[in-house]
């Protein structure tokens, strides 16, 4: 098996087989990140091509400090967020998430049963969804997220906790196995 370093050197030289091999090896993971952040499959397909061009364009700057997958993942996230900004999906990070902890049973999503995190996350406003995906799924810190989205770390935390609170309800069937009578959790109004 050829090492990534050798492969990358050949890819920098424009060797098609090396470029294709890198793409073939890392596309399942990189494209999954793009798909997750974009939310929309068609939009994700458009962005993915741009992401890969950017990764190959930046290959010369790859110094091997981090694993190639980590380095490429970073570019994918950054490029995807830029692309989303262009289509105005992230023009404004939404603050309100309509979280009403007291009237859980009155929530409009009461009848919504999400089968997965990905599906449930689509119910979140774009800003909160992006913060949740970046922090809890992609492993970014609040400081990193703040830089990427142009918000404060505090705002990132606030968005994250709102997002988690809503997801916890949407995915109750996956994370909560106590009897229904134990599920009602009434907190003080904020």
């Amino acid at each position, binding site marked *: 098996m*050829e090492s990534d370093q050798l492969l990358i050197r050949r890819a920098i030289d424009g060797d*098609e087989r090396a470029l294709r091999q890198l793409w*073939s090896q890392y596309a399942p993971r990189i494209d999954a990140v793009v798909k997750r952040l974009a939310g929309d499959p068609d939009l994700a397909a458009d962005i993915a*091509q741009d992401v890969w061009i950017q990764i190959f364009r930046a290959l010369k700057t790859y110094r091997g400090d981090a694993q190639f997958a980590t380095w490429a993942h970073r570019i994918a996230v950054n490029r995807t967020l830029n692309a989303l900004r262009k289509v105005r999906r992230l023009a404004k990070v939404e603050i309100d998430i309509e979280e009403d902890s007291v009237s859980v049973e009155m929530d409009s999503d009461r*009848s919504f049963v999400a089968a997965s995190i990905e599906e449930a996350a689509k119910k979140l406003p774009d800003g909160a969804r992006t913060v949740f995906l970046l922090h809890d799924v992609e492993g970014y810190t609040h400081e990193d997220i703040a830089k990427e989205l142009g918000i404060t770390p505090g705002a990132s935390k606030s968005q994250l906790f709102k997002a988690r609170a809503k997801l*916890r309800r949407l995915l109750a069937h996956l994370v909560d196995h106590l009897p229904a009578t134990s599920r009602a959790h009434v907190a003080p109004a904020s």
Partner: protein
Amino acid sequence: MSHLHPERLAALADGEPTAAEATHLSSCSSCAHEIAAHRRLLMLAWQERETLSAPLATWSTLAESLRSEGLLRDKAGVSHGGGSGRCVGPRSPWWLQVAAAVVLLAGGFGIGRLAPAVMGEQTASAGQPAENTRLASNTDTTVTFHSTAEAISVLQRAERDYRMAMMYLAGQDTITPVADDPAIYRARLAALDEMAGVALDAVHQAPQDPMMNRYYLTTLGARDATLRQLGERLPENVQLVGF
């Protein structure tokens, strides 16, 4: 002290409670339960990162763009198809990588015996460069791991891939008679719920045991798949609102 606010409970999934909150949590099962649910949500989110996707673009389209960018060099003797090089041909397609992950899974469960010791190692080695490279087995010289944590990570990914592959194959199965009766799926869901309950009890007894957590999450994955299958088999005018 009254119950903690839902957003505060969400924050405590991976945060430290204040002294007052800790006192409250020690006596309030409802709030403690909420935090436990949030931690399970975090685990699901973490697993989401291991999701693989079929490539969103084709190589021919991408290659065309790379050529126009001057990033792909036309070279005499190198076919543009690039698919038949003997020494450095493209790696297996994504679906074959997934299948390979399933093969990894077959031998991977043995690693579970190392699990209790691994948690400490994961903490100790986090963020540090790998120093010891271990072979997956004495005879396998192609799959190497730089740490036990890395091997566990691969194992977890393989498990997820396995579930995805099983779901896909279940959808492609044209030989086995497909059950259209939603009652079958409801019965399976009920059984999986019981299994999840047992697995969850095990997690409560050994919360740090990755093997128990894995069984629990795998059961949830199967439940997930069944829920989808049930939803697909309900009449169009019937919506699945809960189970």
